[in-house]
């Protein structure tokens, strides 16, 4: 920089490496031509500015909930995705070669699958050892002879590439099972292109959206539709526990495919269907993110409840595209690499364009001898992807450990493969520990290809992964590495196609309402109930906490009554008589707010809310999701310190604020389809239950017979403003009850809620052709018929023991019961019954 305020160039302290290729800097220390413009920009950015950009990256990742589940984490917690803002930049000519090689390799692997699940000429001609086919658990015998539509086995392919010190790209690993990462690459792109918007535009970076459109078109073209059927494509996920679940939900939303789990699908004869609210809907294409051996418990692994029984028979009949085809995981074996050049000549009649890292399969005698002799220079890996083993670096193991490994290899040589140690290239990453510094980190690139009617199409870019330390040899998000966006530059025009809708707000719910799965509907219903329940419990706790603060530690009637009501509605636990000290009101209330493991607690309700929201994540808008994420972060942050009463009240205020914004999203942003109606019915049912239950209890509680009790009752029901605007006097029983129960214009009143609920039920009944239970209507009518005059002139202090109050309480309890029955009935009639899983039987 010429500006004197700027320190020396970033290049001054950027480390050189003699052993590695540097992506940005040539051997003579100059910035490579295709990096120059970006580097100058980076060099010119002020530290403050860069800090803001980093903060933007972190915020986007947190708010979008970009996570990577780590199996080893103690509570299975999600870990935020790590993204370095500096992209990996690749020039057009170089990419043309990489791209052609990746497409060729995808075509080769597809041809191999066609052969190995068909005539097996590769084995008959000795081009592949039987051990690498028959010896793999990934070779699924029941799939032999199945011909998929269009003769495509490999619909999505990913390949891990690395650059050797001479600048040549090599294949490190093939991913043929259910390749992950393309969704993360897309998310990285969305973030990084906003961190460097001018650079992104000026450098003419190729867009990745075309790739996803190609993917959609490729699948649509293969869909075995009949007549005028529209192709119905679903994305099959093993569920939220999977390490890349974020990506499944993200891609489902981006591609507009329903996200389904195995139990959402069912096979009838030759056809696979999605269980939807409106009956079974045929599925033509399953984009599979579940490992193939778990996909059909009838013929594959029978010990798993994840799959779709009978799916193989649908595939045999050619009536579904499973992408990738079942059995494709076989080719993830590193041991195959040495055989690929000859196979490529045989099957494609071409030379293999990109070399694989030098590989020795120990099942061949000469290879085994080589491996033993050159052990120090090699990395030992399992030959089969299903075999779990950490790579062993030859030079790191000595003595008995080495002898043991050699013994294992000698005992089953075909199960091991040795690879040359790869010196990954290095790329600049922005240091978070320094004011202004570029670090050099080892980097690898995962590239993606998808099938299209015109052959394989390669994503211009991919997921670049960097190691955490300068000498990392293995790049893995599981091990805590970071990722980068990959910028492929172009000489031609940049396509500006985007699958993302321009506005975030309204693309909230569903693309095809008729294809809503029953499970999604069930989760939306519970999302509605939990959003309301956590609002109710927050309100109840705020009321109780407020009385405790006002009473200054004394046990006033208001404190006693509020605590009793909170216990009755399940927000507080039953008193622990053995431990009266613990029963101090403050402690009990704080526990009920912050302890997620206490039944009925606010924190527990937030957790349930997050859980259900996670299951329908692809249905929620980003803003909706941001709010939920903030809520959970607030609560987790509070867990770490010991909150005071004031902090607790502030937290409850914040929670209630989030709650009303959630209501706003549901009301303003969600498409009015069946799923939305179930969500709203869930909310209304929950609120009606809460109102009826707490009012009934209030009316029969001796301890509530103080004038201030009516104050907090109005507060609890969020009706204090309305009351004051109507009656300029302190609360009295008759007008309070009228407002909270009978007034049709009070949205926090019982009959108002009941009326709204009834209207939604009627609408849904018409649409789904269902007769709703009449119990609720009858309970409403009986309540409506109650003669308010009976409450007139009751002496206040004895009001609560009186017969009219008990009568009204009884009617309210009936209403609550009817609401509970309605909820059960909805569940029986429309939901998947997540607990109902298929199981295996076996007879000899």
């Amino acid at each position, binding site marked *: 920089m010429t500006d004197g305020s700027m320190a020396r160039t970033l290049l001054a302290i950027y480390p050189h490496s003699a052993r590695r290729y540097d992506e940005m800097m040539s051997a003579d220390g100059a910035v490579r031509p295709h990096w120059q413009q970006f580097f100058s920009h980076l060099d010119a950015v002020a530290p403050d500015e860069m800090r803001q950009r980093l903060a933007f990256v972190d915020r986007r990742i947190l708010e979008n909930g970009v996570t990577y589940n780590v199996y080893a984490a103690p509570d299975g917690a999600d870990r935020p995705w790590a993204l370095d803002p500096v992209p990996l930049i690749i020039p057009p000519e170089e990419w043309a070669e990489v791209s052609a090689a990746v497409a060729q390799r995808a075509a080769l692997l597809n041809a191999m699958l066609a052969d190995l699940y068909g005539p097996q000429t590769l084995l008959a001609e000795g081009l592949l050892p039987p051990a690498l086919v028959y*010896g793999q*658990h990934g070779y699924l015998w029941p799939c*032999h002879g199945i011909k998929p539509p269009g003769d495509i086995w490999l619909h999505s392919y990913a390949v891990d590439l690395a650059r050797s010190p001479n600048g040549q790209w090599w294949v490190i690993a093939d991913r043929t099972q259910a390749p992950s990462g393309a969704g993360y690459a897309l998310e990285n792109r969305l973030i990084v292109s906003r961190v460097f918007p001018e650079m992104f535009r000026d450098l003419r970076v190729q867009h990745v959206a075309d790739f996803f459109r190609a993917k959609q078109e490729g699948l649509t073209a293969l869909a075995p539709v009949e007549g005028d059927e529209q192709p119905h494509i679903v994305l099959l996920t093993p569920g939220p526990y999977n390490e890349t679940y974020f990506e499944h939900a993200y891609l489902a939303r981006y591609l507009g495919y329903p996200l389904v789990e195995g139990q959402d699908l069912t096979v009838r004869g030759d056809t696979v269907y999605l269980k939807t609210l409106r009956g079974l809907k045929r599925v033509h294409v399953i984009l599979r993110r579940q490992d193939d051996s778990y996909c059909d418990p009838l013929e594959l692994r029978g010990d798993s409840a994840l799959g779709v029984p009978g799916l193989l028979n649908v595939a045999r009949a050619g009536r579904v595209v499973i992408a990738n085809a079942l059995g494709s995981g076989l080719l993830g074996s590193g041991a195959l690499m040495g055989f690929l050049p000859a196979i490529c000549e045989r099957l494609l009649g071409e030379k293999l364009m990109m070399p694989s890292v030098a590989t020795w399969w120990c099942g061949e005698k000469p290879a085994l001898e080589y491996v033993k002799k050159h052990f120090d220079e090699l990395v030992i890996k399992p030959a089969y992807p299903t075999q779990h083993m950490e790579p062993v670096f030859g030079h790191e193991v000595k003595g008995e450990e080495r002898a043991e490994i050699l013994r294992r290899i000698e005992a089953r040589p075909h199960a091991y493969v040795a690879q040359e140690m790869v010196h990954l290239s290095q790329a600049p990453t922005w240091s978070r520990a320094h004011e202004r510094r570029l670090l050099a980190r080892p980097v690898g690139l995962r590239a993606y290809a998808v099938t299209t009617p015109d052959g394989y199409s390669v994503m211009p870019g991919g997921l670049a992964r960097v190691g955490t330390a300068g000498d990392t040899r293995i790049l893995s998000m599981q091990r805590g590495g970071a990722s980068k966006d990959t910028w492929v530059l172009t000489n031609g025009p940049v396509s500006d196609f985007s699958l993302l809708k321009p506005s975030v707000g309204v693309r909230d719910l569903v693309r095809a309402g008729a294809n809503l799965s029953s499970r999604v509907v069930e989760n939306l219903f519970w999302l509605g109930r939990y959003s309301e329940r956590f609002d109710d419990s927050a309100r109840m706790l705020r009321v109780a906490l407020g009385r405790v603060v006002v009473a200054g530690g004394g046990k006033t009637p208001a404190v006693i009554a509020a605590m009793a009501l909170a216990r009755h509605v399940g927000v507080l636990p039953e008193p622990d008589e053995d431990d009266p000290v613990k029963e101090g009101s403050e402690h009990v209330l704080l526990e009920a707010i912050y302890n997620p493991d206490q039944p009925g607690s606010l924190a527990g309700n937030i957790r349930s809310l997050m859980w259900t929201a996670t299951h329908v994540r692809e249905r929620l808008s980003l803003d909706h999701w941001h709010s939920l994420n903030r809520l959970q972060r607030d609560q987790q942050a509070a867990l770490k310190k010991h909150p005071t009463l004031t902090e607790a009240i502030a937290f409850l205020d914040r929670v209630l604020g989030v709650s009303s914004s959630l209501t706003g999203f549901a009301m303003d942003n969600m498409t009015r389809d069946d799923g939305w109606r179930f969500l709203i019915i869930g909310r209304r049912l929950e609120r009606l239950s809460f109102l009826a239950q707490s009012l009934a209890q209030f009316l029969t509680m001796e301890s509530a017979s103080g004038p201030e009790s009516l104050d907090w009752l109005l507060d609890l029901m969020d009706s204090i403003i309305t009351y004051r605007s109507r009656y300029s006097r302190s609360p009295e029983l008759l007008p309070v009850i009228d407002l909270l129960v009978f007034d049709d214009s009070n949205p926090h009143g019982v009959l108002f809620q009941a009326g709204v609920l009834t209207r939604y039920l009627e609408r849904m009944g018409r649409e789904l052709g269902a007769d709703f239970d009449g119990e609720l209507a009858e309970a409403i009518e009986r309540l409506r018929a109650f003669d308010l005059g009976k409450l007139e002139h009751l002496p206040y202090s004895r009001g609560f023991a009186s017969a009219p109050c008990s009568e009204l309480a009884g009617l309210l309890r009936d209403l609550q019961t009817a609401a509970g029955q309605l909820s059960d009935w909805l569940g029986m009639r429309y939901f998947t019954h997540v607990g109902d899983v298929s199981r*295996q*039987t076996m007879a000899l």
Partner: protein
Amino acid sequence: MTMPAVRYHVLHETRYDYGSPVSLSQQQLHLSPRILAWQQVEEQCVDIEPTPSWRRDGLDAFGNPVTWVAFHAPHDSLLIRSVMTIAVEPHLPGDLKNSPPWEAVRDRLAYDATDPQPADLDATRFLFESPHVRIKHELADYAADCFPPGKPLLLCVQALMAKIFTEFTFDPEATTVSTPVLDVLENKRGVCQDFAHLMIACLRALGLAARYVSGYLLTRPPPGKPRLIGADASHAWVSVYVPGSEYGWVDFDPTNNLLPDTEHITLSFGRDFSDISPLRGIILGGGGAEPEVAVTVFPIEEEDMPRELLAAIESRKGAG
């Protein structure tokens, strides 16, 4: 002198009485016998109650007949009755000591980057690990004393069969279908599937091709001899591959320490039990569901036919 074929009727009934209704059920049946050089299938059919909503018949990847059925309506029970008439010709192998040395067979099956003989390639399907046959060095160690250098393969295998027969106790309570081979090896107890899996695992651990055979065994207590184990149930044994046209695949029954001949009826073969389980299904609902299985193997020319069996066969002909 050629011995005549022995003819059998076999009745194999499986019945599930479910504790509560099953709303959806899919079943895979390996209950139809395959045709072999020495085995003719004269008649064969499978009756199913209730009538399946859907059915597909075919051959599996190993050439065994397989049937898939589905039930889409709720039902409380499932009855599957397989009836067959089979003729089995004698097929004992030639003198075992003329078989090639076991190492020669092992080396011939190993990959050497040339195109293999079709029969050898076919045999390599049964050379590696499979779901119920994990290959561990303990197994090679266990079998080692039966396989001294240079000994003819079939004598080695016979010695291994005898070793298993002698050292292991038949005990239906000791194992389940999912008991790992190494547990069987450690506890020395099990049933025919366990012994077959164990023997296969030993052979594969040594680099030999061995397959799992499921079928039936004629059982009767001949005078002066103990009753053979495995009566009135499906049975399982082992087949080992000898390259060359003289032997091919040779059967061994480690549960009874003999070479199967006309008293063993073959249903299917595969890498292990998981490939050819007679009846494997996935049900939704059903409560407890333990099957009742009854197998009757009846030698047609030797005994008067029990009326029940006759009725079952006649009713099929009427329906035929």
